[in-house]
């Protein structure tokens, strides 16, 4: 009976979403407070019923209710409880429900944390979020009901969760990613509300900034978790494959990063308004496009777990309505006045504009690489497949350019920066960066042009960030006082940029100096990978809860000393009859040693993959640092102070704009 209650809860949530999308907006447009007052209760109600539906589905998984088709397809009585729990979002229907739960959660968060905003704005923002929710509730109820029953023939046991998904990384990766995707809906809702109002001002930018930053931080963590999971779980040691689904998550991240920077300019200087609004719309549209690409079967990929043209058309319709409606609104309502005279040709505004150009180019590039085969096919210009080489050759230069620009931009000032002053300012950091880069390259032994460019860009960003921190923290009352005086949003920017530098360093070093060897080994053999000697001791068998495994024992030696013992496995999942390779990794801050077992070549011999991965952890640590920076930035106290007198604040910030910039995170 519970599953029927779950379905009922979904339908009730849909009805509340319909009301939410109409009533407060009508109230805001006609100026009736009584209607606007419904916004918050409706948002809470929507969350409660979505949460109820989610809880009921979770319950069905935990008690092995295989009469529910979705449970039977994605779970098994042998699964440990935590995988039963994460199996809730292991398939299409459940992950969609998780998506909607997040949307309801974000809506509730806006309702709760917007007490200080003008009621008209709140009503409009919540109504826009309600509209998005209506679309997704219809989608799940009409095309992908997670509560469908298998009656009367209830299967005795479930078909098991895809073994690839039976992993801690997969318990948290989708929720984080969805928090990010869905979080951009808030930035989108603010943009739409501002367009409706015609109030695209610094206040609007200030309100949407923290929401955008939080969503971006979650997305950063989500992408990093996906990459980390692919690295250790897919079993072949790569960390980014330019797979369409990875690209789908990278697209909103890139445009979201551009949005964060552009919002900073709009808040501080009141320019780039139309551009910022457009970015907010595009970023959310890309989040939706990502969902569409994954679900529709337009692209085939490992991740594409639900390929169904009906679902695809429904999502495309949703995406189409959202994009066309919001861009039409944009076309009619966005301000066309461009106040060019308010900043010089060399200023922080220009640096951030260039940053946006690069990030948007990167977005377009990744979108092109992902959609190009489709477009060519449509134009009947032949069929072509785009692989890793295209992305590596085109994305890396943009990343390096963004890094170089970022280092210089940190020192620039709002409004106008003196070129000679900036050049003198950059001289020492530049010299220091070249020195460090040279040292790093000698350390890793070997020069390659791209390795140099990547490492230099990363060092450059780091040096510039610390240099600026040093300059800013100068104070008569001592360095410590100076450091303490910096705002949290400045610290957020520092961490964000250091995180980027770490990711760039990790990506460059591991791609250029990583070592991969595939060797044939018999127990007792040893092989070298980099400076590490790997000794294959023996191979044995073991049983897990729902699999049997062959596991090897390897000793890792460095300079004759034993560093660690590794036990990679080859698992055979009994229910789904599938084989999985579980690599074992000796992880370190500066290097990973990675061992995976391949095929058995003869009775004794095995194909073994050995890898030495320098700095690979920096990819994920850097992402984490970026995300922490984001969370730090939104805890800044200026978001907590009352904004009663908007006009005064605005006038003040315009005046303050002439002074050296404090933060542009």
């Amino acid at each position, binding site marked *: 009976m519970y599953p029927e209650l779950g379905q009922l809860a979904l339908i009730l949530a849909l009805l509340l979403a319909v009301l939410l999308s109409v009533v407060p907006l009508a109230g805001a447009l006609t100026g009736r407070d009584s209607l606007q007052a419904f916004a918050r209760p409706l948002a809470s109600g929507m969350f409660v019923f979505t949460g109820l539906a989610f809880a009921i589905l979770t319950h069905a998984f935990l008690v092995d209710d295989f009469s529910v088709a979705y449970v039977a397809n994605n779970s098994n009585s042998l699964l440990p409880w935590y995988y039963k729990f994460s199996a809730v979002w292991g398939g299409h229907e459940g992950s969609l429900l998780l998506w909607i739960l997040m949307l309801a959660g974000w809506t509730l968060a806006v309702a709760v944390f917007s007490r200080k905003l003008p009621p008209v704005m709140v009503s409009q923002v919540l109504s826009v979020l309600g509209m998005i929710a209506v679309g997704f509730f219809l989608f799940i109820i009409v095309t992908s009901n997670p509560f469908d029953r298998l009656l009367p023939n209830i299967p005795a046991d479930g078909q098991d969760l895809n073994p690839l998904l039976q992993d801690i990384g997969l318990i948290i990766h989708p929720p984080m990613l969805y928090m990010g995707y869905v979080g951009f809906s808030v930035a989108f809702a603010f943009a739409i509300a501002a367009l409706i109002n015609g109030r695209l001002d610094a206040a609007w930018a200030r309100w949407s900034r923290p929401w955008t930053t939080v969503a971006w931080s979650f997305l950063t963590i989500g992408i990093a978790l996906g990459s980390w999971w692919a690295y250790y779980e*897919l*079993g*072949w040691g790569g960390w980014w*494959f330019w*797979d369409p689904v990875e690209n789908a998550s990278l697209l909103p991240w890139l445009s979201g990063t551009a949005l964060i920077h552009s919002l900073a300019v709009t808040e501080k200087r009141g320019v780039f308004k*139309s551009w910022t609004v*457009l970015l907010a*719309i*595009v970023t959310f*549209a890309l989040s939706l496009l990502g969902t*569409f690409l994954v679900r*529709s*079967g*337009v*692209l*085939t*990929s*490992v991740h594409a777990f639900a*390929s169904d*043209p009906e679902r*695809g*058309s429904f999502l*495309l319709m949703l*995406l*189409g309505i959202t*994009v*066309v409606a919001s*861009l*039409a609104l*944009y*076309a*009619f309502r*966005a301000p*066309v006045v461009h106040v060019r005279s308010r900043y010089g040709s060399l200023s922080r505004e220009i640096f951030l504009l260039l940053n946006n150009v690069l990030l948007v180019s990167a977005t377009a590039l990744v979108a092109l690489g992902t*959609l190009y*085969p*489709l*477009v060519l*096919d*449509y134009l009947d210009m*032949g*069929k*072509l*497949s*785009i*692989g*890793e080489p295209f992305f590596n050759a085109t994305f890396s230069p943009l990343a390096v350019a963004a890094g170089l620009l970022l280092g210089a931009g940190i020192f620039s000032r709002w409004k106008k920066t003196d070129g000679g002053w900036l050049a003198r300012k950059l001289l020492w950091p530049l010299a220091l960066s070249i020195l460090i880069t040279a040292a790093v390259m000698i350390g890793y032994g070997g020069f390659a042009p791209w390795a140099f460019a990547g490492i230099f860009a990363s060092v450059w960003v780091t040096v510039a960030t610390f240099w600026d921190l040093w300059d800013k923290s100068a104070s008569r009352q001592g360095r410590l006082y100076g450091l303490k005086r910096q705002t949290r949003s400045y610290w957020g920017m520092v961490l964000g940029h250091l995180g980027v530098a770490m990711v760039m360093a990790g990506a460059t070093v591991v791609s250029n100096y990583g070592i*991969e060897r*595939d060797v044939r080994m018999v127990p007792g053999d040893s092989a070298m990978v980099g400076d590490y000697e790997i000794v294959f001791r023996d191979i044995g068998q073991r049983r897990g809860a729902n699999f049997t495994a062959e596991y090897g024992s390897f000793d890792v030696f460095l300079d004759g000393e034993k560093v660690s013992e590794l036990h990679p496995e080859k698992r055979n999942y009994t229910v789904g009859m*599938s*084989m999985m*390779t579980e690599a074992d990794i000796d992880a370190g801050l500066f290097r990973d040693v990675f061992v*995976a077992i*391949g*095929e058995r*070549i003869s009775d004794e011999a095995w*194909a073994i*993959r050995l890898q030495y991965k320098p700095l690979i952890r920096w990819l994920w640590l850097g992402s984490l640092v970026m995300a922490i920076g984001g969370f730090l930035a939104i805890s800044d106290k200026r978001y907590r102070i009352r904004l009663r007198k908007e006009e005064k604040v605005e006038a003040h910030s315009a005046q303050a704009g002439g002074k050296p910039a404090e933060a542009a995170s």
Partner: protein
Amino acid sequence: MKRLFMFLPLVVAVAIGIFLFTGLGKDPTELESALIGKPVPEFSLQALDDPDQTLGTSVLKGQVSLLNVWAEWCPSCWDEHEYLMHLANDKGVRIVGLNYKDTREKAFSFLNRLGNPYETIIFDPQGSLGFDLGVYGAPETYVIDAEGVVRFRHVGVVNQRVWEEELLPIINQAKGNS
């Protein structure tokens, strides 16, 4: 006048939408090949495991076989490989591999890790045979009959459903005719 520029994003979005929509209509797993009913185009390429051995269309003649286009860089190929192993080992299906735009080193490491279901592997680093076949992206699988004529094309991963519903009936039919 400036207002007109604000319509640009809308126009671009609508154009992309049309592309996506037609892409949706064409289910990628059912892309028709212009070659269906025609013989496999002539080619002369090295064998993956032996640079001295040159392969031509004759490797695809004599009995019904599957021609599987794969590459190490293609994530979906890793995904489908296990099922190809099953087809080759347990069902005795003859599979010829076309290693597409890959390097020998990477192709070997792929096979060492996942096993080799292929009777013969054609090495096509430039993608020339792939181009002649109209390969859309890896993985793709073709059913070739005993005369070397393309009977069917499947784009995307081969799994149990694809095998039972699409490939097997065509193979049985091809076997019946020859």
